[in-house]
């Protein structure tokens, strides 16, 4: 029972009036214009983002992610195509790897023939002398080493920079 007679009908009437008024007001308001007047930056600056983030259960989120499914959707071939392998290989310090690992011993064991050692010596000396005479010829002819092609076009890229001796030091 209602404490006052007829109060139920008044409430219903008030509810109906309120719904009607809200509907009319909402129709009359230009939401876009209203949003334009809202200073979003000011609003965001009042939000405690750290607080929000600290309340997020990241581990729980990660547990819910199906990593296998994501990997399945990744086109690995496409990614590899976009990777400049030459650049990566160039950045690897093979000398350091050989010096610091057992790889050096393996290479030495597999290729340490006396003949190959002698060949390396003869060839390296030959190239060294080639460079020596080439440098003198360039000085006498007053030409820049950079202006001379390194090799035939099919064997040497035109953009390659000349490499002089890189003695072991």
């Amino acid at each position, binding site marked *: 029972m209602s404490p006052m007679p007829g109060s139920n009908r008044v409430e219903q009437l008030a509810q109906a009036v309120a719904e009607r008024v809200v509907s009319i007001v909402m129709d009359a308001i230009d939401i876009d214009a209203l949003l334009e007047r809202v200073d979003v930056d000011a609003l965001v600056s009042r939000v405690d983002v750290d607080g929000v983030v600290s309340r997020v259960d990241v581990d729980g989120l990660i547990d819910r992610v199906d990593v296998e499914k994501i990997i399945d959707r990744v086109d690995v071939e496409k990614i590899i195509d976009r990777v400049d392998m030459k650049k990566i290989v160039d950045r690897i310090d093979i*000398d350091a790897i050989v010096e610091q690992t057992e790889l050096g011993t393996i290479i030495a064991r597999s290729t340490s023939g006396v003949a190959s050692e002698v060949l390396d010596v003869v060839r*390296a000396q030959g190239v060294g002398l*080639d460079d020596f005479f080439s440098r003198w010829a360039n000085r006498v002819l007053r030409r820049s080493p950079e202006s001379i092609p390194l090799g035939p076009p099919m064997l040497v890229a035109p953009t390659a920079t000349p490499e002089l001796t890189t003695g072991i030091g």
Partner: protein
Amino acid sequence: MPTETAVQPIEGRQGHYAGAVSRLVAFAADVGASWGLFTLGAAALDFSVQLVTGGQFSLTKHQLASLIALVIWEFVYFAYQWALSGKTIGMAVLGIRVVRADGSPIGWRQAVVRTVTLPLSFLVFGLGFLGILTNRNRYAWHDRLAGTAVVYSWDARAARLRWLARQESSPTR
């Protein structure tokens, strides 16, 4: 002393124009190898003729025949090896090879022309070889005429790794 300090391999030279010293040392090695093989062949021929006929025979006593045989042998020695692999025995030792001017493998025509025109570079005190030093592409005369070039073919990087490996595994270090 071992050769440790002597070896200073140079990286990244594969496909680069070979220099004068490597080329001339390779040529000298080839002259030695071809003469040695010719001498062995001539001795084998002398022995075979003596065995068959029973009489004395020596190719070197027949100067004209010996000269013709030597010229043919030298032609075969160089042309055959260049056409087959782009390198002679001496070139293989020095790690260089002959290619066409654009870098593609040499063919029979280039090999034959290069062999025939090689003596031209010896004319006027070897003036034809001076191009190896003065020409931008290190062409000798016979290279120009045959449309060929000489490049390094040895893997200097592998040689450097071998050298490093020897240093690393050496007990004295």
